[in-house]
């Protein structure tokens, strides 16, 4: 173990990836324009208090946060990882002791002058923690037992956030874990064993599916011949999970059940979540190929869109800018993701590689869940769209994730500094 004299390395700024930075700025600017449009008709006391200006200020704060996180040496992050994790766990528990917001959710820490959503920053911490663990030399990819600790680290955070309750964020944590597990070189069979319960839970709602899944699971387990005890334990464990799933389902909050149910049919509840999705789809569909033009979205400006400057910001973009612009935005996202994946492959150290993969997955899952929600193929879990949705904590988190990616890809020329 060797730590430098200073936790910061300003030398890193020289090798910052301008492609990523440039594309992120482009996305942020389009996002700001959309927020401007979405909140155009909001009653605000002055322009300074408009969501657009607030978000612009948050943009600068986030950029500062990005640079701050970026100049921290990777080795320092590695050293701090488990302390960060501990602090992170405390921060996501704190909201449970701060009730009285008039809602029954425990997501926010009230600092008096403003509120922070600690589960957002926990995404960054979880990535650092997992990257640290998977990059340790003692981690053997062919031994399942080494996966137990990261699994516990992930499930602990996931569980707490799920209780807040915040289904969306817990899904993000799981996605981060899945991506990093895959990139860490874990054996596919191990990934199967870990992901099997998730599929089991989904299959448990349908008897035939559950039966077919059980058979398939049995075959896969048998083909990967282990000792008889592990095989039976794996299989039976899943079966038991499948059997208690209905019990857990009944324990869910009705709004969570409702959100999951309306995923399959947006018209189930035309007044609630289904109504939102319906209006969102009308907004997007009516945008057509070229869109209605900036500030001309009728769904947006007549406020038929729910949460239009936060969760449903994509509907504003699609309505006003149309299919062709959305495809361009998709292209930017995809280029970024592929660019990052290639960097993750090219970097020498696993820690850096995993920071990139973890952050990429966090951003990807947000994009997919959010856009999927606005176009009616994913449940309404209330996840915002990176770089677009209004919200300070979230924008900072996104920039933090970018910092991890930039950081992961840096410090790659040890010869120069050794």
């Amino acid at each position, binding site marked *: 173990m060797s730590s430098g004299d200073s936790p910061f390395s300003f030398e890193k700024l020289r090798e910052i990836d301008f492609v990523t930075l440039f594309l992120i700025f482009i996305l942020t600017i389009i996002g700001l324009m959309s927020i401007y449009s979405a909140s155009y008709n909001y009653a605000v006391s002055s322009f300074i208090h408009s969501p657009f200006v607030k978000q612009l200020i948050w943009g600068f704060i986030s950029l500062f946060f990005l640079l701050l996180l970026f100049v921290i040496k990777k080795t320092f992050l590695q050293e701090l990882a488990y302390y960060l994790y501990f602090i992170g766990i405390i921060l996501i528990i704190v909201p449970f002791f701060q009730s009285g917001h008039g809602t029954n959710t425990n997501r926010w820490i009230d600092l008096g002058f403003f509120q922070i959503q600690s589960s957002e920053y926990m995404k960054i911490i979880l990535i650092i923690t997992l990257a640290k663990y998977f990059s340790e030399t003692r981690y053997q990819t062919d031994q399942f037992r080494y996966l137990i600790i990261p699994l516990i680290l992930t499930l602990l955070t996931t569980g707490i956030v799920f209780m807040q309750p915040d289904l969306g964020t817990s899904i993000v944590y799981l996605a981060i874990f899945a991506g990093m597990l895959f990139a860490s*070189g874990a054996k596919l069979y191990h990934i199967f064993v870990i992901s099997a319960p998730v599929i089991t839970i989904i299959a448990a709602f349908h008897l035939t599916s559950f039966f077919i899944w059980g058979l398939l699971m049995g075959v896969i387990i048998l083909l990967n011949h282990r000792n008889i005890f592990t095989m039976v334990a794996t299989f039976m464990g899943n079966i038991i999970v499948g059997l208690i799933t209905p019990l857990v389902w009944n324990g869910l909050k009705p709004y969570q059940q409702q959100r999951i149910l309306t995923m399959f049919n947006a018209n189930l509840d035309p007044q609630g979540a289904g109504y939102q999705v319906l209006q969102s789809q009308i907004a997007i*569909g009516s945008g057509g190929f070229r869109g209605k033009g900036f500030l001309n979205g*009728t769904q947006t400006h007549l406020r038929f869109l729910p949460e239009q400057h936060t969760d449903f910001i994509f509907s504003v973009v699609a309505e006003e800018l149309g299919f062709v612009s959305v495809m361009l935005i998709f292209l930017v996202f995809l280029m970024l993701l592929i660019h990052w994946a290639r960097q993750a492959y090219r970097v020498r150290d696993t820690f850096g590689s995993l920071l990139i993969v973890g952050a990429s997955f966090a951003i990807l899952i947000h994009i997919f869940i959010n856009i999927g929600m606005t176009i*009616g193929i994913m449940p309404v879990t209330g996840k915002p769209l990176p770089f677009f949705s209004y919200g300070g904590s979230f924008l900072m988190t996104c920039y933090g994730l970018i910092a991890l990616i930039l950081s992961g890809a840096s410090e790659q020329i040890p010869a120069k500094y050794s």
Partner: protein
Amino acid sequence: MASTENRLSLGRLYTLIILFIVLFIILSVRLYNLQITNYPDFATEAVNNMYRRVEIPAPRGIMFDRYSEPLVYNTSHFDVVIYPYVIRGDSAVWNRLSLILEKSVPELKKNYDRNYINRYTATRIESNIDFKMLSHIQEFRSVLPGVDVVSRPARKIRQGIISGHLFGYTGEINRDNINRYSQQNYKPGDIIGVKGLEKQYEQALRGKAGLRYIKVNALGQDFGEDFSKTSQPIAGNDLYLTIDAELQEYCESLYDGLSGGLIMMDYTNGEILAFVSKPDINPEHFSGGISHELWSSVLQDTLKPLFNRLVQAQYPPGSTYKMVSALAAIEENIITPDLTFHCSGSYRLGNRTFMCWKKEGHGKTDLYGAIKGSCNVYFYNLIQRVGLNNWVNYSAFFEFGRPSGIDLPEEASGILPDEKYMDSRYGRNGWGKGNLLNLAIGQGEVLTTPLQLVRYTAAIASQGKLLTPHLVRSIYDRNQDKLIYLSFPEKKIEQVSPKSWQIIIEGMKRVVQSSDGTARSVNIAGLDIHGKTGTAQNPHGEDHAWFIGFSGNPRFPYSFVVLVENGGSGSGKAAPVAKKMLQFYMEKNL
């Protein structure tokens, strides 16, 4: 710090890239589906979203009388409507409405349920509110989001006239009966003609509603009206009736306290000048929804005020029908009018006795005398020579047993009992001469509507013109800006010679103009009145009184039928009504 070598393999890198691409393809396909494939649908929905469409009801066509005096026209009622998607379950709004409209919330909600179409369409919860309620609603507008007051044209009838059966009335289509009208583009809450001329001429009177487009946001707040999209309503077409408003009003007054009806018709063209059926309900009561109390009292009324006695009711025509057998006998050369029979006051057929109305008898009487005195015994003798088939044939010349084709809905056809009918009713041998004798004097199985009788009278007066009685002369077509004259078919009864007609007419003349005719009281100087009294036997109570007739004065070419239910004899009750009507019209028009 020790860190392992990068563990991300090339294979897994490609897997990740493929995963990213696949996820974005999924999103893109769905977006293509929404924004390109289904674009037209969503574009329409977005437009539907942004406008609240407010219907501007079309004024219904006006009904004018033959001198272009308005008979049925429009006034405004104010209705309270709500927009369901704004109100949703807001009980405070319902409670405020309940206070203002002085009706309980469940009552209002019942109306709401009845008229509900969809979340975005104004739904009427109360009709015809008074000025006080109207001003209250305007005053409390700010705390009544989604509540609106719309004015709607309602029907108004010329002062002094009711004529419920003539005009009919309008009613709202509700959710229960919308299926009947859905093909013609009606929706719940629309006004439609339910009875009478309002129903018969619905398509002409209806007009086309206009639409206002009011820009609204999701909260239902107005952003002003988009006038470029407004479509103005097109008023319905006006009807020009053949009715004479003053005569109609006067004739209605003659039935004060009576039930029955009368028709006065021009026997040169079939135009009806007066059409009164009593009792009836003022159509204004139905306009904008009849109150529950009134409706149930109407339904329970034993006098059946919803029953149009002139076209829906079927009565035995009584002695007014005697001209049919007389005509058959003469035309078929079975008798000459000079042939006499002796009336002793009754007639024996086998072991049954058939009475004449005059107990002391008419003595020796010829055909003229028999018509003039309405001698039953003469016709008992006559019909046995004529026979059922001739009687049926001559009845059929006047189209008894068939609807006349008047421009009113639900016309009854009456019953003309031919051999087939009698066989099916009584069995092949179950009927005989007794039945025939009854038919000769218009009793028994034969049933006619008053309308059929006036048509028959007109055919006699015009010596064989079988007209289609009608109430509307022309329709003002607003689109083409011209009057369209309606044509109604007329036929000529060719089988009867003028000589025969003249004999019958002479008989009817004597009824009124002889010093001993049964209707000598109706003799009005200058009108050359012909007539025939009749009594329709009524098993349920006092007999109904008939009087039919016409004026022989070519400047007064009118035939008429007068029915007074439970009026006893025709000469006693029906003839005086006819006389007053004729006198009134003579003074007005001659």
